[in-house]
């Protein structure tokens, strides 16, 4: 087990190395940082100074090592556009993104698993067929279209829910502002969370249904039923427990995809999150922001993958890791 964990970490480090290299390339070689920072009308000396402070006069590998060293100390450089340290910029936007992702994931997990269990338990039911077709729609709609449809129905037509921003936020710890504690904030998060969670919801639902159907065919379920246990107890305590293992793995592995969909969702709902920041930085060629965002995403995704792998090994003793 310990060798397995160490191996996963080493593999993670390799990926991180590749990603940091790509980020470094974006940071140092895309666009012209000297022109952007010193301004178009800078004199030769000024340009040379900027070049020196950026370390651009050093050979390639020294530059890369410096970049990594700075990144390890949390120094990701200055944004070209707003002239603020990049890390501050991203950290300021993180709470909004994390809250949106949490809400979306919660929605997807609760609805997805509940419907999955229901459909597996009543496969021939009309409602089940309805949900099955619905889930196929869920995986057939690109995120941006879901968002636009929801805005059209609930914001424009029925004027029930707001379609942009986070609404009223409350400061909690440090600089973390939450939209969970005000009614206005909660109203604002509903549509984006649904948009972001829709695809995952459909995936979780379909996966739960499949693994539940498989579990329900197993012998121990027959035994449990024969013992005269109540149906709900058999479903939840016996079948679902085993059916959930692959579902949990999938939720973890899908997290990377969620980040991509979050960028689209945040842009549609003008959500002040990190994804939206990435998008504007990309349009404005603010490369330091893009580079740091990529590194952060890589770290988060790799950590989650390792946790998922470990929990999978713990949950399922049948899996042997060589």
């Amino acid at each position, binding site marked *: 087990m310990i060798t397995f964990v160490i191996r996963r970490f080493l*593999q993670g480090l390799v*990926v991180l190395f*590749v990603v940091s290299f790509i980020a470094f390339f*974006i940071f140092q070689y*895309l666009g012209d940082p000297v022109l952007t920072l010193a301004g178009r009308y800078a004199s030769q000396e000024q340009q040379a100074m900027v070049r020196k402070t950026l370390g651009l006069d050093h050979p390639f590998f020294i530059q890369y090592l410096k970049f990594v060293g700075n990144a390890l100390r949390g120094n990701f450089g200055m944004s070209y556009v707003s002239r603020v340290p990049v890390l501050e910029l991203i950290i300021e936007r993180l709470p909004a993104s994390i809250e949106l992702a949490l809400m979306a994931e919660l929605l997807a997990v609760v609805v997805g698993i509940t419907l999955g269990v229901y459909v597996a338990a009543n496969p021939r039911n009309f409602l089940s067929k309805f949900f099955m077709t619905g889930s*196929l*729609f869920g*995986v*057939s*709609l*690109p*995120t*941006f*279209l879901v968002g*636009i*449809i929801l*805005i*059209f129905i609930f914001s*424009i037509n029925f004027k029930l829910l707001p379609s942009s921003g986070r609404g009223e936020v409350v400061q909690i710890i440090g600089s973390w502002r939450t939209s969970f504690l005000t009614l206005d904030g909660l109203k604002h998060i509903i549509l984006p969370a649904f948009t972001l969670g829709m695809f995952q919801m459909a*995936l979780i639902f*379909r996966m739960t249904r499949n693994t539940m159907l498989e579990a329900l065919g197993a012998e121990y379920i027959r035994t449990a039923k024969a013992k005269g246990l109540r149906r709900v107890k058999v479903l939840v305590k016996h079948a679902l427990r085993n059916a959930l293992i692959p579902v949990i793995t999938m939720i973890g*592995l899908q997290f*990377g*995809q*969620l*980040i*991509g*969909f979050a*960028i*689209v969702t945040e*842009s549609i709902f003008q959500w002040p999150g990190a994804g939206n920041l990435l*998008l504007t930085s*990309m*349009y404005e*060629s603010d*490369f330091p922001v*893009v580079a740091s965002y*990529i590194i952060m*995403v*890589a770290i988060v*995704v*790799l950590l989650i*993958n390792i946790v998922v792998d470990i929990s999978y090994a713990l949950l399922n003793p049948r899996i042997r890791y060589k």
Partner: protein
Amino acid sequence: MKIFKSKIFKHFLNNPLAVAGTVVILIILLLALFAPLLAPQNPYDLEKLELANSLKPPVWMEGGELPFLLGTDMQGRDIFSTILYGSRVSFIVGITVVLITGIVGGTIGLLAGYYGGILDSILMRMGDSLLSFSQTLIAMLLLGLFKQSSVLLVILAISITGWVQYARTIRSEVLSVKEEEYIQASRAVGNNDFRIIVKHVLPNAVSPLLVVAAVHFGIAIMLEATLSFLGVGIPITKPSLGMLIAEGRNFLYAGMWWMVFFPGLILMATVFSLNLISDWLRDEIDPKIDTGL
């Protein structure tokens, strides 16, 4: 024809959803194919556009007029024509991506599964790592950072991550085929690896790729639309469904829904039909195939 008498065709006819999906796909495909003949206007010939025709509603609504069947956009572009040309781009991107990633991913998975060892570990680890990042994010950054856009670049950006699912699927198939007796027999008679792989392993391991391809076709089309929606996909000089929706979105608040509704409907109908077909194919070939959906 032989195929019309086969068992699989009979099964197909017995599955109304799969038949419906196929019919819808064929209709959209034909419309896209013959777009230049069917479209009343070439929406990207700027000389044909007249601002006087801008923002017209569909023909059955008040203010609508022929030939603008489904209305027009801000620049007087006919929505129906733009959809025809746009779905053409969608299909070109979808088909090319599926072909490229299917061949590349299929070959990688075939070799990785057959030879195993270090090659297998490196290739599959690489695939896993790619898969754990968002396809949307990777494609978006590739196109957005270099400020270049063309249909070919969009295809490449989507293909970079797309091959992995094919490789994984065929690899797991190869791992079980490899142990079959006929493979050992073929080796015993002195056939070389190349012959064994092409003649025996490939034909017995390839069919699940069809299911992956059907699912991936839809995903590629959605991804292209998303990229174009974000403004980093198909160049603005070419029509695409995603861009049409992105433009039309601003007019929703004014109650002009047709610029979003019709392209959105076609996009959804295409992907939904592809998923209907892939669902049927999966049940037909092997319900356990993992397509990532």
